[in-house]
């Protein structure tokens, strides 16, 4: 297989693949009869320039950092966690159950950490079962997590129709968590400090997500456990030969992955919305796959990719306002294309880039490379 220098592998190649995804999207926009450049400008404006735009962008990015990290941790061990969507839903049930039963009894400062822990624990539990089934019963984790997504959706609907439902609401949803038991909004904190800040749903969940990214980095690249995880991802036979307990590691990887996915719920249940509604995960678990692939399963890459997707989602809402012919689903198209080009077709451009680099450097370098 052709080898590329690291900067081309981690910088140039993803950039080219993303450019391809945007190019195809541009073609679709042009076919619809709108100007792709203007549409892009609208998205950038909505995501960064409008008051509160950045807040919304970072709010969406928070979701994607959590789900992206979840997919990335499992992917480091070559496990495909397609189930972040369901694990996040379970995280929502966990967080809502704890927050709603304690918020009128205990002070907010105690409820918030408990609810966060509950979100992580519920997501962990929902992920460790497919992990266990793969490690000890030989069922394929992809199929199991797909099934678990749907089971989680059924479970959420059932909980919202029954135990967790707020009877005063016409639609199945929980009551709102008391203000004191929710994460403070960033714009409130900024105003307390005397700064001007536009209102947005951004809360302290964002720094929490960044902290999670740092911890994941430490875990994967600075601990023995993380090293074992990466060895397993590179070659399972090698890991077995080296005495690494692959089965236990599978459980561990899925546990961490599920906990991260579950934490996504914190941004919603303890954040601006403050309640559990049907389908609050809104496909963010699947976006996590795109984020992880684009970020090459590295925490830094995941955070950057999550920021891009945050901007895309917020920009997409702007498209909805401005155009009659373009809707926010355009973002789903971009997302699908990014998964296609950065994931399934990630190797397509390698020979081309290698040839271009060789031509650019001249023959003497090419010899040194061989």
């Amino acid at each position: 297989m052709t080898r590329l220098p690291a900067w081309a592998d981690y910088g140039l190649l993803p950039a080219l693949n993303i450019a391809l995804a945007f190019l195809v999207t541009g073609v679709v926009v042009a076919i619809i009869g709108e100007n792709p450049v203007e549409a892009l400008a609208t998205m950038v404006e909505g995501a960064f320039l409008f008051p509160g735009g950045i807040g919304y962008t970072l709010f969406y990015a928070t979701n994607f950092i959590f789900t992206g990290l979840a997919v990335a941790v499992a992917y480091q061990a070559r496990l495909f966690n397609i189930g972040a969507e369901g694990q996040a839903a379970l995280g929502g049930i966990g967080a809502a159950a704890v927050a709603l039963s304690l918020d009128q009894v205990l002070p907010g400062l105690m409820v918030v950490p408990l609810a966060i822990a509950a979100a992580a624990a519920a997501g962990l539990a929902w992920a460790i079962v497919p992990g266990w089934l793969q490690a000890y019963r030989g069922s394929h984790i992809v199929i199991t997590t797909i099934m678990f997504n749907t089971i989680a959706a059924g479970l959420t609907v059932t909980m919202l129709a029954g135990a967790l439902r707020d009877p005063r609401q016409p639609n199945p949803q929980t009551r709102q968590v008391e203000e004191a038991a929710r994460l403070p909004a960033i714009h409130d904190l900024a105003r307390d400090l005397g700064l001007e800040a536009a209102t947005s749903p951004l809360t302290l969940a964002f720094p929490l997500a960044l902290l999670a990214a740092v911890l994941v980095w430490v875990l994967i690249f600075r601990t023995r456990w993380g090293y074992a995880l990466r060895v397993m991802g590179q070659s399972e036979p090698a890991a077995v030969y080296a005495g690494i307990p692959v089965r236990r590691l599978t459980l561990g990887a899925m546990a961490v992955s599920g906990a991260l996915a579950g934490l996504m719920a914190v941004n919603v249940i303890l954040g601006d919305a403050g309640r559990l509604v049907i389908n609050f995960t809104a496909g963010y678990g699947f976006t996590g796959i795109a984020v992880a692939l684009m970020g090459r399963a590295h925490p830094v890459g995941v955070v950057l990719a999550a920021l891009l997707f945050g901007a895309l989602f917020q920009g997409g809402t702007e498209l909805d306002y401005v155009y009659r012919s373009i809707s926010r689903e355009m973002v789903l198209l971009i997302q699908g294309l990014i998964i296609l080009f950065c994931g399934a077709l990630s190797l397509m451009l390698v020979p081309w880039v290698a040839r271009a680099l060789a031509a650019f450097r001249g023959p003497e370098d090419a010899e040194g490379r061989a």
Partner: protein
Amino acid sequence: MSLLDTLAAIELREVLLLADSAIRLATPLILCAMAGLVSERAGVIDIGLEGKLLAGAFAAAAVAALTGSPWAGLLAAMVTSLAMAAVHGFACITHRGEQIVSGVAINILASGLTVVIGIALFRQGGQTPSLAADQRFGEIALPLAETLAAVPVLGPVYGDLISGHRLPVYLAFAAVPLVGWLLWRTRFGLSLRAVGEMPAAVDSAGQSVTALRYRAVLLAGLLCGVAGAYLSVAHGGGFVREMSAGKGYIALAAMIMGRWRPWPVLIACLLFGFLEAGAARLQSLEIPGLGTVPNDLVLVLPYVATVLLLAGFFGRAIPPRALGTPYVKER
């Protein structure tokens, strides 16, 4: 009503109604599960059934609305689904990409594209205009249905259950023996199954692994297209957002439950169809000793069953051996 009372109260007419709606609900599952079976028997994982189904449903409804012909809609659905299958093949076979990632991409692409193009074409929030009766596939009355109506049991069974469905339903039931014949009774089928078990052997016998896998993937695309057309121009009268609603995933589950064999897969599809039809008819299920089980939990039973089967808690589902591994020719 308890479960036993419910069962006792059901008469033949009720059973027929239930079976009839089970068949209607099972049809897209059967077509998609056969698609998945063909693709996976050749060694290519097909998570993208859902996306191809959705894209097919949209194309069928859009073209039927524009041309007025359900046949044009069916053709469009097959072409669209085929194109998505070709993308899957290009990524997984030509470029040896991750098959699961490619499938996920197809599903998300279909979610996005159907709404984007739908809004651009019709400006109805992602729906297509509702179709008139002559723009859909009509119900086909089989010969003798009227004549036999008076015969007890046989008459209603033939007239209400077997006769009176729309074209894709019969196509779905025809697809099962056809797939069985193609895969187990032809040379092509033998090679195709071999490519899913041990591609190197097929390669050394002088057959192209790439060509065989492409044919399997594209065939799967065609079948999903028919399923899509069923949803929007036969069973339904138009396209609505996300109308595939997880049916592609249930089909995947049925394919595993049926252990990648056509007749058992058909039975699994019908079982899931019955479950859905039953859950829709009973508002909630009461099991003695356990209390009431809400409808939404009954609907997840196929998924739970698949998980248990895959884990070997009952039976064993062993996938084709080369499933998911791209073929790299030895050099």
